């Protein structure tokens, strides 16, 4: 597992204060103050196999998500604290055959995860025994990756169990 730290924070404004009030002469509520604070918790780089396309899930103070891996990589499942520290690559999907897009675990997850107990569940859009995606499970500490199901080969865009890339 790869671990990285130190979020880069960009404070746009931090002024969530001060509706004003003049008493005695009548009330003058000030206009809305809608400043927000944007924080870049983590910037993916080449070694992170970034390009996330899905949303996150939150458990306690830990965010979990997936990356597609961009054009050259197979994607990951990652965790990062809500303060941006402790970025952890929980699992990197393995390389697949160029011609069949097949491998043992799946590749390029484009959807988010769900969490049940300490188990994360997700789908991969490619890879698996036929190259058409998998359903997988993974413990929140990065151990115990299991490919639960490999979708079958598409034939003229049809098969018996659904093209995962359209369903995820």
């Amino acid at each position, binding site marked *: 597992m790869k671990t990285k730290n130190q979020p*880069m924070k960009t404070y746009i404004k931090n002024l*969530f*204060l*001060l*509706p*004003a*009030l*003049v*008493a*005695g*002469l*009548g*009330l003058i*509520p000030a206009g*809305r*103050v*809608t*400043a*927000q*604070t*944007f*924080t*870049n*918790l*983590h*910037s*993916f*780089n*080449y070694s*992170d*196999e*970034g*390009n*996330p*396309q*899905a*949303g*996150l*899930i*939150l458990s306690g103070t830990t*965010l979990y*998500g997936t*990356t*597609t891996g*961009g054009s050259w990589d197979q994607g990951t499942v990652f965790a*990062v604290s*809500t303060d*941006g520290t402790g970025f952890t690559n929980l699992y990197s999907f393995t390389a697949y055959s160029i011609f069949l897009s097949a491998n043992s675990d799946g590749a390029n997850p484009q959807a988010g995860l769900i969490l049940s107990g300490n188990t994360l569940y997700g789908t991969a859009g490619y890879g698996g025994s036929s190259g058409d995606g998998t359903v997988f499970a993974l413990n929140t500490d990065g151990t115990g990756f299991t490919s639960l199901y490999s979708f079958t080969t598409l034939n003229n865009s049809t098969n018996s169990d659904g093209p995962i890339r359209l369903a995820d």
Partner: protein
Amino acid sequence: LILSGNVLYGTATYGGSSGYGTVFSLFIPPQLTIIPSGANVISTWPTNAAGFTLQSTTNLVSPAVWSTVSPGPIVVNGQNAVTNPISGTQKFYRLSQ
């Protein structure tokens, strides 16, 4: 996106320092509303804004001295609400975290 308290969390597919996307958070401050009610003012803000305290000061000139408003809020129609009598020439309120 997911919302936890007053913070949105999300991902960006591209951009960031290396162009491979980001994980980000966006803090959405709670809105404090002040309305007159006879000889009082009623300050309200959402109850999901956990950890915020209503404070007031009579002068914003630095160094402004902010004091926690007492009594504390009660929940009315899903909003934290504090009622205070109008006094003096001016008073300023804020939510502090």
